[in-house]
């Protein structure tokens, strides 16, 4: 056990990040649960419920729960060299979810540097690979990026099975007919294996085996509609004319560039310039 070394977790309060925290209690005595907040994200305090549940379940572990405002970081990362990026990458600049997560990682690195944390984890899972920060190729880039600051970045729940795709239509057979007989997730991955929500249930941290998308789940993590524009871009504009490999390639190009471009924020931070945009703790 890494008795004296703390770990930082990008904590939304959802099933994946809560399970990540639960699994890491075996290795760490002190866990920093960091929930990030910015304009466009609502009900951020919802994540506190699963923090309290974790603290009750694992009393021997010290959990440090913080909400950090990263609005300025997100703004800088989304809009720096905007015209240049717009002409080069076009609508890929609307990849809000990826840019938001990248901003969280940048803010997390600053937090780690401030608090001498050398290990960071999150709840990235292979079942959500349409989102850039959950894509294996981007995760590798982020891992290298963290390494340059002496921080190790891991994804303990990445290989858990993705949850079964849920439909708003109650009749499952009808839903299958309408989606061509097989859901996208089932087509890409084998549905066998334990999901994060099942594991969380077996650990006694969830009331039922399937919670994703339920009212219970929604009340335990922040609400955000910012993915809508990104969704329109990917599902309705890009993918109807291109395949997934092209999407992955474009995403890798864009985010490799964005990671390099964002480095100056942390370089400035280490020099003591622009410290004000980081570690803005909310009470």
């Amino acid at each position, binding site marked *: 056990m890494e008795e004296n070394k703390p770990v930082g977790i990008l904590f939304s309060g959802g099933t994946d990040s809560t399970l990540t925290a639960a699994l890491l209690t075996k290795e760490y005595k002190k866990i920093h649960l960091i929930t990030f907040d910015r304009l466009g994200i609502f009900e951020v305090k919802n994540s506190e419920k699963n923090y309290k549940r974790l603290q009750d379940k694992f009393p021997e572990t010290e959990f440090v729960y913080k909400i950090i405002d990263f609005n300025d970081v997100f703004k800088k990362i989304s809009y720096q060299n905007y015209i240049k990026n717009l002409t080069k990458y076009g*609508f890929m600049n609307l990849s809000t979810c990826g840019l938001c997560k990248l901003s969280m990682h940048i803010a997390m690195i600053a937090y780690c540097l401030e608090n001498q944390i050398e290990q960071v984890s999150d709840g990235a899972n292979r079942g959500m690979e349409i989102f850039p920060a959950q894509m294996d190729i981007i995760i590798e880039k982020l891992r290298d990026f963290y390494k340059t600051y002496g921080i190790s970045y891991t994804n303990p729940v990445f290989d858990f099975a993705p949850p079964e795709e849920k439909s708003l239509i109650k009749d499952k057979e*009808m839903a299958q007919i309408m989606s061509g007989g097989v859901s996208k997730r089932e087509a890409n991955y084998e549905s066998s294996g334990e999901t994060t929500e099942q594991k969380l249930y077996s650990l006694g941290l969830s009331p039922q085996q399937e919670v994703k998308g339920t009212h219970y789940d929604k009340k335990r993590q922040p609400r955000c*509609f910012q993915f809508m524009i990104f969704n*329109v871009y990917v599902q309705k504009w890009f993918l109807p004319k291109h395949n997934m490999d092209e999407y992955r390639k474009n995403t890798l190009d864009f985010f490799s560039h964005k990671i390099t471009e964002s480095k100056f924020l942390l370089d400035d931070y280490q020099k003591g310039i622009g410290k004000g945009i980081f570690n803005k703790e909310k009470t």
Partner: protein
Amino acid sequence: MFSRVIAFFVCLIAVLLPFRLRIVFAEFVGWVVQLFYGTYYGIINFILKELKKAEEEGKHGGE
């Protein structure tokens, strides 16, 4: 094709908007889509329920 044209205009507007306005625009699109899908699936579920009811009534009527 039609949905791609709409997608193009949504993306075009979004890409030109500054930080705060893009956030407000995304929120607006989110609620519109939520309302659209909520209505759509509500109607589909209602039709399915009525079809099942009619099917069961038909079975009982045939006995």
